[in-house]
């Protein structure tokens, strides 16, 4: 399998403060590296403010990186002139949490689905046929083409958002919390639709979510972020080696009363992205913290089983197969 996407040392800082205040720097994404193979699903998970949406926009170069490199299908995105970047963007698309936040509310479904072709200057022989086939592909009745967003349910809107993203036959689709505002029964529909489309169209997904349970179900690999940094990259069925991933997993309740958990208390507050500590950002909340953690940042290193973790005191036993312990 070949690499479709390779991200190396990607960082993004935002200037904060203001005219009369002291200038401050907000570290949204710091030194993120990963690779995504063709046909795979990589999940990016983390709590609000961990930088996962910024990362998505950096990957698509919707915003520019402060440092680092994004290589898409062998091409360094930063080296591309504007025109070629636009052409390359046909092959990478973004699906939003609320698709119509990015579409003019006065656009009908038909208008919304034809807009990508207009933007890219693609001439269509029969626009109506194209709209019908796109709607059909995402399981919507073709009569919806004349509807407006306020007439659609949340699930229907998200299907339109997916159809629009797939209009130009992309290879990579970045899904930014695509089901976060939907009811669970509809979430399952959208997830099944994404599964089917990946098979039929050979798509590669970058799936961003705050829901570790959903990510572990849907993705091949999981990348866990905390305050802009990658703390762990693991196969989705592996046991976590980073104490933060463990805490996230222990905080998401299983829908099974026989698996009730005693919630261990995480003390301490999440530090601010303006004022990150010198060492590990999770140190003030971590049950396994040592002196080293407070002063020195642990690099992302690879465990014998291939799992990557940025921790001085990882839960290695949990991550290794029984034979290696």
């Amino acid at each position, binding site marked *: 399998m070949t690499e479709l996407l390779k991200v190396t040392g990607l960082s993004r800082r935002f200037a904060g403060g203001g005219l009369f205040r002291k200038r401050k720097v907000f570290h949204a994404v710091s030194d993120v590296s990963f690779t995504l193979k063709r046909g795979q699903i990589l999940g990016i998970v983390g709590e609000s403010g961990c930088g996962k949406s910024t990362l998505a926009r950096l990957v698509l170069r919707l915003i520019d990186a402060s440092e680092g490199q994004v290589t898409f299908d062998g091409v360094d995105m930063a080296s591309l002139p504007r025109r070629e970047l636009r052409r390359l963007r046909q092959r990478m698309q973004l699906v939003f949490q609320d698709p119509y936040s990015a579409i003019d509310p006065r656009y009908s479904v038909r208008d919304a689905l034809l807009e990508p072709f207009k933007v890219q200057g693609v001439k269509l022989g029969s626009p109506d046929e194209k709209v019908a086939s796109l709607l059909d592909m995402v399981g919507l009745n073709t009569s919806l083409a004349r509807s407006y967003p306020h007439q659609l349910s949340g699930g229907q809107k998200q299907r339109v958002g997916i159809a629009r993203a797939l209009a130009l036959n992309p290879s990579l689709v970045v899904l930014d919390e695509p089901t976060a505002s939907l*009811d669970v029964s509809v979430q399952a529909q959208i997830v099944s639709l994404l599964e089917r489309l990946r098979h039929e169209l050979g798509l590669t997904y970058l799936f961003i979510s705050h829901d570790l349970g959903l990510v572990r179900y849907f993705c091949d690999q999981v990348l866990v972020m905390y305050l802009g940094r990658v703390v762990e990259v693991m196969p989705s069925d592996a046991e976590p080696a980073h104490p933060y991933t463990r805490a996230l997993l222990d905080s998401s*309740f299983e829908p099974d*009363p026989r698996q009730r958990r005693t919630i261990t208390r995480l003390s301490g507050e999440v530090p601010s992205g303006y004022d990150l500590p010198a060492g590990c950002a999770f140190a003030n909340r971590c049950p396994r913290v040592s002196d080293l953690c407070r002063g020195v940042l642990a690099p992302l290193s690879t465990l014998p089983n291939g799992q990557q973790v940025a921790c001085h005191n990882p839960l290695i036993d949990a991550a290794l197969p029984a034979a290696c312990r």
Partner: protein
Amino acid sequence: MLLTVDMLRIRFGAFSPVDQVTLGVDRGEILGVVGESGSGKSLTATAIMGLLPRIGGQVAGGSIRFDGTDLVDLPESQMRRLRGGRIALITQNPMTSLDPMMRIGPQIDQAARLHLGLGRSAARARSLDLMADLRIPDPASVYDLFPHQLSGGMKQRIVIAMALAGDPELLIADEPTTALDVTVQAQIVQILVDLVRQRGLGLILITHDMGVVAQACDRVAVMYCGRVVELARVDALFEHPRHPYTQALIRCIPRNGMARGTMTAIPGMVPTGMTQPPGCRFNPRCARVESRCRVDIPELLVGPSGNGVACHLAEAA
């Protein structure tokens, strides 16, 4: 039972968004009310709090009995004494309950001064105790802060402290953790469970999250389109769900170790507003639908065990 709601019907003009709602909660017990958007969970809570008239609705049938008193016909002056005192509400967004212009401490004091008749310093001491109980670090300095200086999880703890200040017997928490990150959600759920166990409160926990239900609740009322479709003990509900909607709802949540592609969605969507189907409201999405389901409304039959199901096809209790 501390609170019994029987065949509650709520009306807004000619429209009844909530109908046939039967549920109850005892002291020291957590009742989960679970359902998707538009299922009537929050309206039911609003009715119990006696706040329907403020949003243009009214109770059109059934009863709400709290500790022997029917709340439906209670005059507003007496309801006002209960509300925030013996019955307290926690909302999803803490800023609906907090005054952004007022320091944290005095906001907690209010309920104790109003409902328990405490003086300024006694109320302050009590608020500080409550804040410590809720694991708010350094209560004395948080007491003097403004809401915007606190994180979302901390604000929600303050709202819980406010609800507890009037020494309630019944607590209604309407999606108290939905706006919070998962690690914070887990902490708040644990706090609520501890409160019920230690103080013997009755808690109605309204949520859309079956994981939260499985973790915290003793009994569960499943709502769909304004009706209670199933009422059961939590273990029975997850092991042997009887209503096709409950069965489908449990199957469409990803679980640990579930293989990709094995999650089953519920086809169709929740009907909205005035377009409710006749008969059982789940019939257009139900895999086991029969012709009578499209005509007759199934009644919620509650057995002596307190379990019940509103489905023509469910076996007798």
